[in-house]
């Protein structure tokens, strides 16, 4: 290609780019989706999930535990001991099983009449716990109540041994001692494994409307045929349109990253003693990782939209394509594989792993970063070649 032709092509591509950007900035729906709801969706959703889960975990540990107790009068000492550990005895329901089934209580403790007798004789005294293990919210209170009962039981056992002149140590021939090597950062990684998906989703939503509007939309509005009668190659048109789509996707991502930065400040991360790196350094690496992916996704969206016969059809196809980025997130959540270097070169998977590394505060080395960039860029170039080929077909232009 001569220098003159390149300049002409560049001028045309820039013309197409500026027109698509201007036209789409005037479209309320596109602006709202790409620049407002899209970027806010991820951070707000993540913030909500994060706060909700943490608040629950933190609060459950400290809050008083209300438990309806049947037969409290038979075991005043037991009740005192439990109350000292945070239990709040509630009035007894007439039917414990019904109370559980009707969700009136998460756990009900029943102290039978014979408890008193067994207690006096030094025999095992039974306490019944009613709960429904199929209910997710019953797990924590039942575990806490059992722990309280166990603590009381071992204190009692120790006292009884002492009374008989034996050392309570005899009761503990084997003692498991926990050496949990999870760092606070890695413990919250599961929660953060969803974070990369939000960024990918933002990029996808940011460019989606332009990808449709500039191809299927242009054809449906009958403006593609006049456009193609201009002395501009189809590859040049495609480049301009793609650049506009990528720009919207990246601006959307930039806004989302900024929003994540703001949300990150309000998350009670210090309570969990973790580092949540969503600052400028994270943002810079993130943009770098996502840049080739934004091009790849925009090209795929354009490919699908150009293939579709109408705007509606393109929307349908793209909603299906939107599920594609979930796959690595789900895969990593269900099968926590050990990340191997080649995985970083796989588009989407590479970004997923890279972002998780960054979020964990481990950083990402240059070789892996290069693998992500090279792998995804190669895929983007291939996708562009296919799209360019499809764009050149006669079928593309003709609307009827």
């Amino acid at each position, binding site marked *: 290609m001569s220098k003159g032709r390149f300049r*002409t092509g560049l*001028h*045309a591509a820039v*013309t*197409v780019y500026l*027109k698509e950007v*201007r*036209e*789409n900035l*005037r*479209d309320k729906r596109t602006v709202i989706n790409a620049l407002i709801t899209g970027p806010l969706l991820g951070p707000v959703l993540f913030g909500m999930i994060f706060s909700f889960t943490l608040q629950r975990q933190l609060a459950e540990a400290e809050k008083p535990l209300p438990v309806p107790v049947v037969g409290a009068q038979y075991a005043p000492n037991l009740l005192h001991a439990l109350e000292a550990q945070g239990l709040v005895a509630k009035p007894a329901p007439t039917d414990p099983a019904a109370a559980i089934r009707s969700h009136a209580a998460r756990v009900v403790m029943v102290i039978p009449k014979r408890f008193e007798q067994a207690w006096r004789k030094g025999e095992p005294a039974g306490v019944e716990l009613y709960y429904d293990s199929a209910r997710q919210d019953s797990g924590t209170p039942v575990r806490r109540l059992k722990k309280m009962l166990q603590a009381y039981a071992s204190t009692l056992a120790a006292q009884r041994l002492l009374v008989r002149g034996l050392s309570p140590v005899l009761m503990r021939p084997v003692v498991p001692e926990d050496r949990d090597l999870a760092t606070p950062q890695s413990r919250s990684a599961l929660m953060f494994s969803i974070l990369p998906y939000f960024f990918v989703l933002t990029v996808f939503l940011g460019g989606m409307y332009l990808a449709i509007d500039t191809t299927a939309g242009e054809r449906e*509005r*009958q*403006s*593609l*045929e*006049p*456009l*193609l*009668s*201009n*002395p*501009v*190659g189809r590859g040049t048109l495609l480049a301009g349109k793609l650049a506009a789509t990528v720009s919207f996707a990246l601006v959307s991502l930039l806004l989302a990253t900024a929003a994540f930065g703001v949300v990150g400040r309000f998350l009670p991360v210090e309570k969990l003693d973790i580092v949540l790196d969503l600052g400028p350094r994270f943002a810079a690496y993130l943009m770098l990782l996502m840049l080739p992916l934004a091009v790849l996704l925009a090209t795929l969206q354009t490919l699908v939209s150009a293939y579709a016969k109408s705007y509606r059809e393109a929307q349908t196809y793209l909603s299906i394509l939107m599920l594609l980025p979930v796959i690595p997130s789900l895969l990593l959540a269900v099968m926590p594989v050990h990340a191997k270097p080649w995985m970083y070169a796989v588009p989407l998977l590479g970004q997923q792993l890279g972002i998780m590394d960054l979020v964990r505060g481990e950083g990402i080395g240059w070789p892996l970063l290069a693998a992500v960039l090279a792998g995804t860029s190669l895929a983007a170039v291939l996708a562009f070649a296919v799209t360019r080929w499809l764009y050149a077909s*006669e079928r593309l*232009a*003709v*609307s009827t």
Partner: protein
Amino acid sequence: MIEVRGLRKAFGTVQAVDGVEFIARDGAITGLLGPNGAGKTTTLRMLYTLMRPDAGSILVDGLDAVRNTLAVREHLGVLPDARGLYKRLTARENIAYFARLHGLSGAAVRARVDEMVALLDMQDIAARRTEGFSQGQRVKVALARALVHDPRNIILDEPGNGLDVMATRALRAFLRNLRNEGRCVLFSSHIMQEVAALCDRIIVIAHGRVVAEGSPDELRARTGAATLEDAFVSLIGSGEGLAA
């Protein structure tokens, strides 16, 4: 000048264009008349390089339209059957977009757009977004953007479609003007009135072939028909798909 020889194009088993030949000269209005489905649009689409012919040659001002598509497009102003505008852009912006795609920039774009706005008498709508424009207003904008690069040859596919009487009269006057400036004007139509009123030369197409060619008087003389309408019917074999 546009010269077409042995043009053929098939879609699957349907031979849409089957050996079309004609010459559209400079300083003349040439009309492609034929019933719906005769192959007019496909022929024109090959002329403005949207489609590749299976066989045959097309020369626009001596340039090969099959091999030299980009250069040929510079010599053509095209008003296709599909004439959608960008409704979120103003009329001026629509025209300026095409001017830039033809390589103009800066003040040259403004100057040419001003010229087209004056030429097509559309000062009142130039600054408005094209959403909600009437058919006539839309055709004006589509014409303006097709001619913004001052092409020597103008191809129009059914330009009269959907226009009211006033808009049709204005369009005819405008096309005559283009011819008087020495340009080559080629348009297709299935409306006899339109062709009869406007054309210096008529090419009658049916079933993908040229069945007759000549001035309106020549066609009447050849068929021995009293009116042009009778002449067409006798040439095509039936009046189906034609409108008076």
